């Protein structure tokens, strides 16, 4: 368990984020954040996926792009207004089912020992990202708006790759920075 006490800027420590783009953004915000102590004690956990903004943004992006892809793929089958209304909830259910499907795959392929370290979730996530990239590549050949959405999705993937390389190079200094924050006195001392 890596916990930080009372330092409000600790919420921007990169390890609290998952995707490299968000980690890079967090690192910038961390350096800009004022160094203050919280009024009431706080405990910040240095774990991935602590950010609601990141998780919700990624999830919303997946649902929205899937809705557009569904709309474009099923255009002509029914009335466009009806399709536009149904596309969003259908996309949410599709993502939900794909998440369960990918988690089953992750559970099947990852050894039990590694599952206990959360690797299954990462494998499942990787599988979903791969499906998304593959569908986006296919959608590049479609008309607007799917082409533009697919182009944006692939640009984001490329930007995330660049950020990942950058964060990999900065890794030793980021680790040192985070280690200097971890710990603090126990409560009641």
């Amino acid at each position, binding site marked *: *368990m890596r*916990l930080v006490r009372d330092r409000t800027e600790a*919420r921007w420590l990169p390890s609290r984020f*998952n995707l490299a783009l968000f980690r890079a953004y967090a690192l910038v915000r961390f350096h800009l954040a004022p160094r203050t102590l*919280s009024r*009431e*004690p*706080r*405990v*910040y*956990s240095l*774990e*991935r*996926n*602590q*950010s*609601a903004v*990141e*998780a*919700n943004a*990624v*999830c919303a992006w*997946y*649902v929205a792009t899937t809705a557009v892809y569904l709309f474009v793929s099923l255009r002509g089958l029914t009335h466009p207004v009806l399709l536009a209304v149904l596309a969003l909830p259908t996309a*949410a*259910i599709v*993502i*939900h089912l794909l*998440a*369960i499907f*990918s*988690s*089953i795959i*992750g*559970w099947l392929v*990852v050894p039990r020992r590694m*599952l*206990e*370290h*959360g690797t*299954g*979730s990462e*494998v*499942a*996530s990787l599988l*979903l990202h791969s499906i998304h990239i593959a569908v986006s590549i296919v959608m590049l050949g479609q008309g607007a708006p799917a082409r533009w959405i697919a182009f944006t999705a692939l640009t984001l993937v490329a930007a995330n790759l660049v950020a990942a390389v950058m964060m990999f190079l900065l890794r030793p200094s980021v680790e040192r920075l985070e280690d200097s924050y971890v710990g603090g006195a*126990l*409560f*009641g*001392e």
Partner: protein
Amino acid sequence: MTIPLWAEGLALSISCMFFMLWGAGRRGVMRNLSAIIPRSTPFANFLRTYRVFWNFAWTVADTMRFRELRVVPDWEFQGYSHFESLLKEPGGAIMLTAHMGSYDLGAHLFTETTKRSIVMVRAPEIDPETHQFERRLHVETAGDALRVDFNTKASDLAFELLDAVRSGEIVAIQGDRVTPGISSVMTTLFGVPARLPAGPFALAMAARVPIYPVFVTRRGRRRYRMITFKPIRLERRSRDRDEDVKRAVDEWAADLEQIIASSWHQWFAFEPFAREVEA
């Protein structure tokens, strides 16, 4: 536990729709809400019930994540001065809590970040297999500073808990629900006569230790708040022991009412809390 974590919110939101089909639980929460928020409409309470289920799903997911992966959420404190005095109690103390937020996670964090040890008293699951599963899980994950005891009968744990609290340990008990076989005291909750457990108060009186009302509420994704209220001290003010206990129970009921009124979406009471509410 292997679902992509960014999809967790979506998965829980969709899964909770199926939980709404659980008639008894849904009706229980809706009836409680009609007492907590008197002028609310059944439709509004139906939507609020979804929010209760949704929060419940999140707290279960966070607790399981902690148990399986040792991942803790962020924590903030309210009423820290009371929490500090709980930690500095020279002897034992009683932490009285409710079925709110993630009390399991709260107890684990407490033992990880303080030097005090806790004995957590839990009501057993009705289903024997679920009870065995719970017991095994607690043995595997509790650690040295946290012990979990299951309260099967009113008299079963009394001496053990008295020993624990007298030897300086903190005993954590849930005091918002009366299960069959547990002694209770009549008080008023949201203007309705309701029964609350008498055990924690009898224990505090016997051991002469204070009761600290402590609640753990969920504030957002992986973010919890530990709220500590002013301690309740059971003092013998009269010759009538029951009257002294009643005074303390009323004080507890007032704290409970205050926290439920502000965090009704975190109160996981799936049965009506009083007969009048049930009717």
